[in-house]
């Protein structure tokens, strides 16, 4: 597959699966205000997905629509980072997943604002404003709940321990990114990794949380290797369109 298409799917699949997981909280969050705030993030993520899929579909040139890409690809064809498919175990996991994603997403979007690819640059300039708010909010909550009660600290630490190994998958790169970097479509991604490390180190220190030290990292999502939760997410998400493949909604 074309490098540009692959990269756009990696981005769009990641925002879609996180949006899907985030949206599931609406009606079930710890407090009404959070129901509303979390849904706002979900809406932004679904909106960003549309934009990534439009670029991917156009670059692919096979006449597929964003909905085709979302609802008619299989698990092995989804290229999202594994982090975002990790389950909604509890709200601490949901928040930590969001924060770790934001800590990568913001420097990524900032870097993409300088992309040599016009559509990607436009997308990034629109999205980056949303993403700045997301991390502002998720970072605040990580700090408050880490440095909150004993129980909230324990919950956040458990979530960090569970999710930290998957953060590496956000930053996993291969020939796709190298090709695009050589073409000026992608910026230097080492910069994004350094920003992620600085952001998370500072925030976890303020939150009195310990980043797991064993260096264990899980990757594979970018080439369609997922965790066992992924199949269920897609089964749920794709069920209706796949049951009525000729229908329009």
């Amino acid at each position, binding site marked *: 597959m074309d490098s540009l298409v692959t990269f756009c799917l990696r981005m769009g699949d990641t925002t*879609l699966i996180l949006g*899907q997981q985030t*949206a*599931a909280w*609406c*009606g*079930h*969050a*710890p*407090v*009404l*205000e*959070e*129901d*509303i705030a979390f*849904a*706002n993030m*979900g*809406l932004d993520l*679904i*909106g960003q*997905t*549309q934009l990534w*899929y439009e670029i991917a579909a156009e670059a692919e040139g096979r006449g597929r629509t*964003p*909905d085709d890409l*979302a*609802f008619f690809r299989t698990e092995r064809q989804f290229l999202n980072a594994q982090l975002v498919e990790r389950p909604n175990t*509890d*709200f*601490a996991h949901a928040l930590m997943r969001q924060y770790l994603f934001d800590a990568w997403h913001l420097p990524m979007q900032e870097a993409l604002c300088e992309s040599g690819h016009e559509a990607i640059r436009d997308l990034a300039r629109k999205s980056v404003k949303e993403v700045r708010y997301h991390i502002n909010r998720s970072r605040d*909550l990580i*700090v*408050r*709940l880490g*440095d*909150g*009660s004993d*129980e*909230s*600290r324990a*919950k956040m630490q458990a979530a960090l321990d569970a999710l930290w190994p998957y953060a590496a998958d956000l930053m996993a790169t291969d020939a796709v990114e190298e090709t695009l970097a050589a073409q000026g479509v992608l910026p230097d991604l080492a910069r994004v990794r350094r920003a992620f490390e600085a952001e998370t180190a500072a925030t976890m220190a303020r939150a009195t949380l310990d980043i797991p030290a064993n260096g264990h990292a899980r990757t594979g999502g970018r080439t369609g290797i997922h965790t066992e939760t992924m199949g269920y997410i897609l089964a*749920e*998400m794709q*069920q*209706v*369109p796949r049951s*009525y493949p*000729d*229908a*329009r*909604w």
Partner: protein
Amino acid sequence: MYAQLVETGAAETSEKDREFQEKIDRGVRIEANDWMPEGYRKTLIRQISQHAHSEIVGQLPEGNWITRAPSLQRKAILLAKVQDEAGHGLYLYCAAETLGISRDEMTAQLLSGKAKYSSIFNYPTLTWADIGAVGWLVDGAAIMNQVPLQRCSYGPYSRAMIRVCKEESFHQRQGFDIMRQLCQGTDDQKAMAQDALNRWWWPSLMMFGPSDKDSVHSEQSMKWGIKQNTNDELRQKFVDQTVPQAEWLGLTVPDPDLAWNEAKGGYDFGEPDWSEFYEVLKGNGPCNRDRLAARNKAWDDGAWYRDGLIAHAEKQQTIAAE
């Protein structure tokens, strides 16, 4: 409706009560700290909190389909809509709080099963078409009830309703839009739409509550300007508005007694099964237990989060004070 069978208690007739009634009759809005009869306060707390609970529980049947919405745009629209319900619950809880009850107290009443909420949300959403039917019928019925509440005598409630009505205007349309797409789609989709209408029609009519001749509290509520129309008036209006829409969609309203009555300029229609309505109110609808279990789980699972943020805020206050 969203607040069904609200008790009013007996009215007193002291001098202050008479002055209060005059104020209402003159169309003066009552504000939070104004003197008001205890019955008025209690009735409002019951009505507004029931209304708020209905919004909150109402998130569940539609939220059930957010993760399964069949297109990216439908997913976003549904998420935005269910989010709005949370917002409406929030505005209404705040309006009730001005009357001297806390949101936590109201939440406790909901979670224990003591407080009522609209019967409609105890029915299951079984197919995607149900999301269309709920938006079209349930939100349609709700708007019909809520528009007059913008003129309610209690200021904070009336202002909350103005905001709710403004936001809710897209809800019914998105439901109708789902139905329209289904009815113009494949045979399977059309069958799905008809099936949803069959299941949601009667529960929607029941939303307006039983006939006013059986409702002991309506009269007092209307005198107090808390209720503007009778249940039967609103139900008639709903039927008159909705039947032509169903015809436009090419769907059949599941009521053999439905017929246009030229003399009254409205439809005659059948009587809902009120025994079912009372069973649902008693907690024996198809989803009552599931709905309360879901709300209880969200509240219990979220305790550490609410407490953790308070703990942090208190730590910060201590640091600032030192």
